[in-house]
């Protein structure tokens, strides 16, 4: 009998339905059969869907959600047959997927998160001493002055040329913000959206002429980095493990989730670019179940609360995020004071910017 149980268990493990069984038992909800919904999500949302409380909250509503991660722009290249939804990290790739799979607009956008730069204290202080950033006194946060940073990058500034950097061995080489591959990952593309807006004189890049004008600087920002990480999760892991570039572009949600997990974040400093881009985490329903799930994520109070726990800002109610992150106000610019969030170029233009930035020219 034990042997049979073992085999059954093994089969369950293989089929990956254990989560459903456990969830069903937890909430005593055996009456309703849960629907299994499959999706491809941006890497930064993997932990949200893996959170046992999220699994439980979804099961209460009759869902077992199975996810795989992929770069948001890379989702276009995947065969999504058999999936119920895709969940890229921004609107542009979501719109493209929606067009490809004929998903009905409007698309559910349950939560968003601005792009921020993470730095260790040393690097942040050197930036501040050289007019590239302003640090909030006594806090672990500040503002990155995008125009000043882009001017420095345009002139190939190295850390060695910044005063005060010589005290820190790791601060050598060209000054740049490490971002993800803009052709496959949303955060990398959004980085170009924000920087191209500044480089284009405070206007969204819209025309061929705009693309031409900004392309040399965009190419410089990307080419100095060499090989880039394919996902914001990988870039943030590098930073956490002490490897990687001194300045890394990540989502605020990743930082907020890290702060929520532990007592101290060491000498982490969060720099909010004065001009940044938001990731609008957008559900692309491929089936009716997928759409229902997207709406549930947007509307269900428990799931909204859990999204905040993972660092996301739910759409439509800023207070929810502010209240939930009160303990980490020293790190987070909760109300995004002084942070401009210009619109993102259309996906066609953004693709073109990314292509030119990555190209060998």
């Amino acid at each position, binding site marked *: 009998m034990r042997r049979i149980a073992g085999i059954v*268990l*093994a089969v369950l*493990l*293989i*089929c*990956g339905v254990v989560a459903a069984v456990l969830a069903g038992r937890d909430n005593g909800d055996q009456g309703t059969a849960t629907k299994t919904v*499959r999706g491809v999500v941006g*890497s930064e949302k*993997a932990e949200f869907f*893996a959170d046992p409380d999220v699994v439980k909250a979804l099961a209460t509503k009759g869902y077992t959600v*199975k996810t*795989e*991660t*992929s770069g948001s722009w890379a989702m276009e*290249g*995947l065969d999504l047959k*058999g999936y119920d939804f895709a969940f890229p990290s921004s609107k542009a790739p979501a719109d493209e997927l929606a067009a490809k799979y004929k998903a009905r607009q409007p698309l559910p956008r349950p939560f968003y998160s601005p792009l921020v730069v993470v730095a*260790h204290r040393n690097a942040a202080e050197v930036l501040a001493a050289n007019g590239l950033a302003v640090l909030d006194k006594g806090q672990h946060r500040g503002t990155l002055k995008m125009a000043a940073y882009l001017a420095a990058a345009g002139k*190939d500034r*190295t850390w060695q040329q910044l005063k005060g950097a010589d005290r*820190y*061995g*790791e*601060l*050598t*080489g*060209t000054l*740049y913000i490490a971002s993800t*591959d803009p052709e496959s990952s949303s955060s990398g593309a959004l980085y170009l959206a924000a920087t191209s807006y500044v480089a284009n004189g405070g206007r969204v890049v819209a025309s061929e002429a705009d693309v031409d004008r900004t392309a040399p600087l965009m190419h410089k920002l*990307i*080419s*100095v*980095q*060499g*090989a*880039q990480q*394919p*996902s914001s*999760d*990988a870039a943030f*892991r*590098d930073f*956490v*493990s*002490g*490897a*990687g*570039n*001194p300045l890394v572009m990540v989502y605020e949600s990743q930082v907020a989730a*890290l702060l929520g*997990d*532990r007592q101290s*974040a060491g000498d982490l400093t969060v720099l909010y670019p004065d001009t940044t881009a938001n990731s609008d985490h957008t559900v692309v329903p491929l089936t009716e179940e997928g759409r229902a799930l997207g709406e549930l994520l947007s509307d269900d109070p428990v799931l909204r609360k859990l999204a905040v726990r993972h660092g996301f800002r739910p759409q439509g109610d800023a207070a929810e995020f502010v209240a939930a992150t009160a303990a980490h106000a020293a790190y987070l610019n909760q109300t995004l004071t002084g942070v401009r969030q210009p619109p993102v170029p259309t996906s066609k233009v953004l693709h073109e910017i990314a292509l030119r930035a990555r190209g*060998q020219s």
Partner: protein
Amino acid sequence: MSTRHTRHARHTRHRLTAATAVLAVALLTATASACTSAQKPSQDPATAPEPGTLRVLASSELSDMTPVLARVEKDTGIKVRPTYMGTLDAVDMLAGGKTDGVYDALWLSSNDYLRLRPDAAKKVVSETSVMASPVAIGVKAATVAELGWKPEQVTWSQVEEAVQDGKLTYGMTDPARSNSGFSTLISVASGLSGAQSALTDADVTKATPRLKEFFKGQKLTSGSSGWLADAYERRGTVDALLNYESVLKGIPGLTVIRPRDGVVTADYPVTSLASTDATTREEVRRLTEALRTPAIQRRITDVTHRRPVVASVPPAAGLDTSRRRELPFPGSRSVADGLLDAYENELRRPSRTVYVLDTSGSMGGERLSALKAALRGLTGDFRQREEVTLMPFGSDVKSVRTHVVSPADPKSGLDAIRRDTDALNADGDTAIYTSLEKAYRQLGADRDTFTSIVLMTDGENTAGAKASEFDGFYRRLPAGQRDIPVFPILFGDSDRAELAHIAELTGGRLFDAQQGSLDGAFKEIRGYQ
């Protein structure tokens, strides 16, 4: 094969219990054949699908994860069956579709090179870094003292200076065969080129003269980190090793230095593949999740000296937490491949090899054809400046023909090797030891090359000197010549114990073409030449 196992077992770090050692042996047996074989996947025990088991194409240094993976299996029921391979070969396989249906996941030290190849990158669905280890230089404590180095202050330029002054020699793995060698090459080139951002073709060209000087100090090369450590210990005269911090921390007596001006860090992403189904990718995701739990992260850093990627787990004691600049990995394939090409053909010391080839009567027919095909295949792999001696034998050495692949005219040397290969004939008895003695005499004193002997035989010694006589001969050789290793290839009916003894005696390593192919064995040995 037995030498290979005991060597691995001896050097696999820490707390290898008997059970995990047995497991390691089983894994290595399985993987060794995959490394050296061109067999059909369906016949290969290493790649046959099995429910609950993930077939993972992995970097060879991940063999130190065996005890951690045993723990993960206990926790999750997911078993990992690794097949070890160098980055370049693995990426080639992936790009060419040869991993489709054969492997469930990829686990290399880094996917940086993979991403330079769009044909390979599009086969990847997701990748998640699970641990990290930077490239470092491990230097004998006495040498650190002689050089007057403060470990935390050392730069790549200082390392270069010590090499130029003749005060520092080192070993490293072959960048074309081994992940650690490849990362080391990128680190050294970035560090010495003075490039402030990602390397360009122009940076590599500019740095070539300095790199050439630097690689004069390389006295040991190896296809794997394990054998490199063995050879270092045996040789005793090499001052340092370049490798991942995690590997160097496992070798006693080394002061591990991360140069102050920057390193390349391996981040070991567990990678799921588009060729697999959703169920398999779910298993890969569960494996990744298990590897990133705090308990397993703690175990990883304690057992393997790698750095955790989870903020709540600090690196193991002894891992210096001061920060280093991360040197950017090249952003284009032309730079990465150009650097490799320069290393093989221009920067490194050339290799010098005697191929002692059994062409006795028993080699007639298919075996001789296989040998000829394998040798002809090798001619595509010989590097510029390489010296190749073919020494076919039967009852005695039949001929000695030496060819050099000259940079000015590589074709003529390679053509000559092909001609000599085509002329091989099978007859006579098997005089293994007499022929080996002649190979040592032929090579004479070690020149400024990587010098080695490859022995391919399909049978036992039946003529000429006996094993004990060869032992005596070898022990009487001058020290310089005793540094020349013999790499025997087990083939046909050759005797494992006999060949293992030769490998053990001379500091070589046994390669198996009974399980795998002759072709594969010859290619694998390239990493050691």
